[in-house]
């Protein structure tokens, strides 16, 4: 993260690339949208840690958002590769364990 101030780690779940891919695709709109997770490019059994962090998330926006982005997800794979997941707030991005 690149924001000023601090981030609070609210939760972290160990998962796998296969589960994270399916879960992320659901978050992004589901199979009917045709979306495909980049985690499908990795071995399905590879360990991926899903971290929920609360703080100020400065993302590229066309206009100020309706509500500030105060929560974000970071994915970290077993080799240390970091990918940013979705951002939102406690309402739009409640803490849940990823499921496939």
């Amino acid at each position, binding site marked *: 993260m690149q924001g000023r101030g601090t981030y609070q780690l609210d939760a972290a779940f160990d998962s796998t690339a296969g589960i994270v891919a399916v879960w992320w695709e659901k978050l992004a709109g589901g199979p009917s949208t045709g979306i495909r997770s980049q985690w499908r490019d990795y071995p399905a059994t590879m360990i991926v840690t899903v971290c929920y962090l609360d703080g100020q998330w400065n993302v*590229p926006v*066309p206009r100020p958002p309706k509500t500030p982005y105060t929560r974000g997800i970071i994915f970290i794979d077993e080799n240390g590769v970091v990918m940013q997941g979705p951002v939102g707030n406690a309402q*739009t991005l409640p803490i849940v364990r990823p499921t496939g």
Partner: protein
Amino acid sequence: MGNDTSSRAGNNYYSGVSVVRYDSAFTVTSSHCDTTTTNGDAVVYQAMWLAMDAAAYTWLELGTGHKNCSSGEFKWWYIWMSNPNGFSGYLWTQVISGSVQHRFYITNGTDGYWRWFIDTTQEKAYYWPNLGFWLQAGMESYDPSASAPNHDYDGMVHQVNWSGWQGWIAGANPWDTCRALVPPSLWCVDDTSLSGNYVAANRGVASEP
């Protein structure tokens, strides 16, 4: 995704936006720097947006993110989406190098899919059978000290209702070529005037309508 017909209100149903620009080198001064594609204030974004509602609570985006760490410049292409389901985030990222020129465009097919292209490569597709409210292209950063060389946004064209590519509307925006000037703030201007496109500190865009 549903069929939110409200996004078809008005006369401009944007079905495509295209910009030709360089992945220029930027300077970002924040001490919060790492070589990952994560967001934050130590990033300069060269982006274009297609708002899917009037307030732009939902949108499609294609751009380049830049960080400048002690290890050197770090940058990546990205596709971003905020949709009515509450999802807001990257759909795709790819770390890149070099500062060459590319054509970046987002276009909707009559099959309801939005597609993101860089040059001739389709990077992503997403089914969302609505068209856009308005367009915007430019730069954005949360770093108050971000700086960049002057550079141009060329070939700014759009599609309306699956039309052929056409220039941005002259009355709403005369900048077929948009020149971005930094620092101390981000501007997107034509060659002769600073008026019209300054939005806020560290944010400069050209937009229509």
